[in-house]
């Protein structure tokens, strides 16, 4: 009797599925365990989430294969960068050594309770001096890393916000005034020196929150809802371990008939205005430098005037740059 064995179809889908299984095997989630403290890497704006992560870690969704692949890559890059850092230390002037890889840190409160724990990637120990810089390696998305120029920039992005507090916690725990953040990127990593003192108030806020969280953990209660729908919507506990009310203000309704007439007239003129702007720009581009001209029925007169620009080195520009998150307001008006 003839028998045939069906072979699976060759395809990229087959490779992708096998790769996902490989990643899941390599980055197996360690059995969820409860704890009575906060991780230094897990500073949250929502205290309720911090407490749930410590008391009900099993009720958070597991990471999918894509997220695990990213974390696996992060771990691999961290190892490679620390190895490179050791070699770099030998050629640096002054020389440094790398030591204390994955050293565990604990921060205790006034009652002697452990409230924050973490593991430092390593320390840069400078030459013969006693200066020891806690070092933290991060592998964030290239676009995110590109936007970071100073330590303060980490607080502007929700994906890097907790990372900022992680390094501050390490500096605080080891009583070191300075540390270094090493950001992986194509090419030489971005190195950001970090000082604890300007951020002491932020670190104290972290300590207060950690203490509050631990108080709740000890008595089995939960902090109030954060009442910020933008935080709740992106929280993995939403709908599972946490069930907050959500509320949006809604679009503001403007009913002044006079204002609506202004918008209608503006809409009528919009196309003509765009065409005017375009033609005006074209004409003035051609006429730049022409002090007197006749074109058909048109008379042109031009005049040179003063203009002042400031040529500044990039690093000086960055030093005096001041970012106001609400400094600009852009309005778009569309007729539906």
């Amino acid at each position, binding site marked *: 009797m003839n028998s045939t064995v*069906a*072979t699976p*179809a*060759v395809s990229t889908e087959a490779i992708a599925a096998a790769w996902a299984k490989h990643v899941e095997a390599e980055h197996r989630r360690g059995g969820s365990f409860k704890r009575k403290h906060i991780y230094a890497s897990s500073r949250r704006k929502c205290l309720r989430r911090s407490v749930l992560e410590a008391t009900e870690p*099993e*009720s*958070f*969704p*597991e990471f999918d294969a894509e997220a695990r692949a990213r974390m696996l890559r992060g771990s691999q890059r961290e190892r490679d960068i620390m190895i490179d850092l050791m070699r770099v230390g030998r050629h640096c002037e002054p020389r440094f050594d790398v030591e204390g890889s994955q050293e565990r840190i604990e921060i205790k409160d006034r009652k002697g309770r452990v409230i924050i724990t973490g593991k430092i990637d390593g320390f840069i120990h400078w030459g013969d001096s006693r200066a020891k810089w806690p070092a933290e390696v991060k592998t964030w998305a290239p676009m995110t890393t590109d936007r970071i120029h100073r330590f303060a920039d980490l607080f502007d992005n929700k994906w890097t916000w907790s990372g900022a507090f992680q390094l501050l916690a390490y500096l605080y725990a080891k009583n070191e005034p300075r540390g270094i953040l090493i950001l992986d990127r194509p090419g030489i990593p971005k190195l950001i020196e970090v000082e604890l003192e300007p951020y002491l108030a932020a670190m104290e806020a972290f300590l207060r929150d950690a203490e509050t969280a631990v108080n709740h953990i000890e008595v089995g209660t939960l902090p109030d809802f954060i009442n910020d729908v933008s935080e709740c*919507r992106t929280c993995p506990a*939403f*709908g*599972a*371990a946490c*069930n*907050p*009310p*959500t*509320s*949006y*203000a*809604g*679009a503001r*309704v403007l*009913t*002044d*008939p006079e204002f609506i007439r202004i918008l209608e007239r503006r809409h009528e003129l919009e196309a003509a205005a765009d065409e005017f702007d375009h033609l005006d720009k074209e004409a003035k581009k051609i006429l730049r430098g022409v002090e007197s001209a006749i074109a058909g029925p048109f008379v042109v007169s031009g005049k040179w005037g003063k203009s002042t620009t400031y040529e500044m080195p990039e690093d000086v520009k960055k030093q005096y740059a001041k970012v106001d998150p609400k400094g600009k307001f852009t309005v778009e008006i569309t007729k*539906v």
Partner: protein
Amino acid sequence: MSTNEAKIHEPEVITDDDLRNPGVPATLAEIAALGPKAALDVINSRVEILRTLRIEAIRRTSPEDWVMYKDDKTGREIAYLQDSGCQRVAPLWGIEVTPLGFPERTPATSAKPEDDFAYTYRGDGFCNITMQAIKGIEGTRYSHERYAQQASAGIQREVAVKKAARANLDGTIVRKLSGLNSVPVQELAEAWGSKDLLARCSKGRGYGTQDQRVGGAGTTGISPTDIPICEVCESRGKKGTKLVFRENAKTPFWGCPNFKSHEDKPVIVNDADLRKQIEQRKAAMEQPA
């Protein structure tokens, strides 16, 4: 209460302009009392605001957020906004969701982690634009659904179903308060300014078998990717015109749906020949190198 303790409440003055806002409560009698012209202006203004909100809400969704359904008898096509799409329109409509208590599991406990179960959330909703409230809404999801089966049985599947049930509660409240429960498909095309985007919407009941709706072989048994393309239409700019199966012909064949535009160059593929070619191609791919 003594005069010293009395609180003075300033009466709220509502102007004619305020009445144009659909969120300002007013009876028909109050609007009619403004006089015929003013009353009509107020009503038209309210209608226009709700119309603008509805169109803008659809514009904020993407085609993938919708599932289309077709009535076999009337041919009427309507679209349903999925829970994921509801999250895009909730901020515009100012939706509030207040869940009531904990979610209810059915059954309360299971003998084995693989046993089927469901979670139901109950809650109230409110719209800050229309000031409309709804109470006692339910959102339910089941463990046999695809996303739940992808999570491992046990706590992870419980978490997945709970989250989906909460999303369903929120979505149901948004759909009811915004009127986006059942939207004529034509309205989607008008809001997006293009009928082509409808092709990206998921297809539900009335659009063929489940297999056909996801691009399967359907009743012909031939996968859409294996159906030949009309070369004459291709050369004339009508790219991607697939041949259509004519099973009732004396000898079943595949022909071009636009055959009348190129009768001088008919495109006909014998059905038996086509199936033989497909089999031979598949056999060649499966053979080891």
